[in-house]
């Protein structure tokens, strides 16, 4: 074994140049796309954020930090940012808690397992456009199913997407329906990897089902919960599609997300420089959130 390692080391040294060529040849197709469509736009966007660039290419002169100071004093930017954070809180909590509850229920081994799994996962396969078409119809104030059912019991009609107090909740409900399947699947897969012996041992010790849930299942799922929480927060912060199509950010900007504001500044207002500045401010927030999550996770696993 030692000999083999030594031989390999020698081979490595003599082949160093050849290895570098081969390595880059393998990495090249990815690296070219990666540089061209991620690194370059990231740097170009940073440059744009310091200019007054517009869609037509005029006003490209350097402005220093003017776009950034404007963004930081722009009430619409703050409102969109606030909406985004609020959406993230409102959506992340049920998307983690309910997906766990669904997975636990399906994992009980009741009959019809494939049907339950199918029902919860199916919406995840739909394009945002289709999801929004379904739910615009569900939420339709006069003809929608929800108000129709509520009318039967004498409630309503509720303006689900037109009332600033309700619109965000409606968006969250749609998001919950659409995306819970992904978290649900991850929990379900993790549940099935908990060794059966642990339950048998606990049962012998006289631990009931609920006791097992809190002393075995939930602690065993901790790494999965961390992963789901991290992915979910990042996904929710980037929300655009369903809000843009359901409410177009309305009523009166009450649901407009930061990505939509970036889109509108760039492609409706044609202010590429300003839009890029907001992108970079938002990116800074994403980095901060990621770092905070990283710290929290490390502290917890160290403890």
């Amino acid at each position, binding site marked *: 074994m030692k000999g083999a390692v030594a031989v390999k080391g020698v081979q490595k040294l003599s082949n160093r140049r050849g290895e570098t060529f081969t*390595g880059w040849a*393998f*990495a090249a197709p990815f690296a070219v796309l990666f540089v061209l469509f991620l690194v370059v736009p*990231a740097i170009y966007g940073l440059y744009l954020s310091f200019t007054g660039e517009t869609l037509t290419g005029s006003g490209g002169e350097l402005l220093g930090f003017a776009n950034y100071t404007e963004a930081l004093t722009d009430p619409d930017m703050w409102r969109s940012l606030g909406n985004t954070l609020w959406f993230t809180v409102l959506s992340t909590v049920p998307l983690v808690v309910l997906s766990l509850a669904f997975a636990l229920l399906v994992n*009980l081994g009741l009959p019809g397992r494939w049907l339950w799994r199918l029902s*919860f996962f199916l919406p995840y396969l739909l394009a945002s456009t289709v999801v929004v078409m379904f739910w615009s119809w569900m939420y339709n104030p006069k003809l929608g199913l929800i108000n*129709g059912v509520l009318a039967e019991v004498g409630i309503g009609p509720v303006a689900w997407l037109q009332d600033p107090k309700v619109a965000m909740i409606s968006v969250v409900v749609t998001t919950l329906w659409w995306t819970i399947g992904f978290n649900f699947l991850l929990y379900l897969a993790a549940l099935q990897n908990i060794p059966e012996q642990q339950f048998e041992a606990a049962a012998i010790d006289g631990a009931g089902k609920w006791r097992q849930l809190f002393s075995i299942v939930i602690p065993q799922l901790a790494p999965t919960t961390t992963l789901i929480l991290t992915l979910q927060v990042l996904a929710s912060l980037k929300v655009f599609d369903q809000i843009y199509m359901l409410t177009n950010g309305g009523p009166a900007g009450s649901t407009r997300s930061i*990505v939509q504001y970036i889109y509108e500044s760039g492609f409706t207002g044609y202010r*590429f420089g300003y839009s890029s500045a907001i*992108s970079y401010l938002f990116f800074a927030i994403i980095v901060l959130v990621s770092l905070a999550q990283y710290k929290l996770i490390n502290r917890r696993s160290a403890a």
Partner: protein
Amino acid sequence: MTSYALSRGIKQGHKPGRKPGENPWSISRMVALLVLAFLAATWLVPFAWSVLTSLKSEADAGASSLSVNPPDGLGFDAYRKVLAAGDIPAWAWNSLLTSVAITLLTVATSALAGYAFSRISFRGRRWLYVAIIAAIIIPPQLLIVPLFRQMLSFNLVDTYWGIILPQAFAPAMVLILKRFFDQIPVELEDAARVDGANRLRVFWSIVLPLSRPILAAVAIFVFIGAWNNFLWPFIVTTDADLMTLPVGLQTVKSAYGLQYAQNMASAILAALPLVVVFLFFQRQIIKGIATTGFGGQ
């Protein structure tokens, strides 16, 4: 993920819950079953309600919307009209073409790069690797403006390549595949290399065949994402003939106006391909999503 854990996957796992001696009809199990049935029904209602609407006449859909048995009866009129208009099949073709291209390119580029990171010690490997990890937290949504400018200068706006290229690579998938390749015993390759096979040959005839499950998982994940992606195709296409299904539907949604039945028929038609594929390959798709979701762990 060890190959042992991978092969266990979801469905092959044990079926936990009921122990042999446990009463299958206990009250708590019946309650759980009822709760589950209620939740699943709730989750299926938007589908059912949209299908029902799509089967009605426009007059019924716009009037007696709750009725299960409308005056004009139920039929496929709305579907016929939507299909005759021709947009949906054309958009579905665009979606299929771009999603397949994106999937093939992403799997190929990620597998090659993942193998390079796993097996070949080349100059510059370290910093490229760090760049990839850093790139994972950059949301593509934040790059739409500079990317669009770039596409204008490349003359790729309103082309298939304009849709495909920015989606044809995935840093996260490179990492997933690298981790998988790391676990393939290197001795398998050494034997072939002693016999004079070059890297590409070893990769093609030894590594790839051993990696089929993870490649399928990555392909499934990428395909679903590409098929359903909205924002980038929406930005880079203005020509209705080149639009993908999600973008085309959103663009003409207002054109349907008050034609609720046709609106729902087109939504159902757009949802159908992936739903049908899912029903056939349920187990593989679920396993694929879970594997890639866990980052290949």
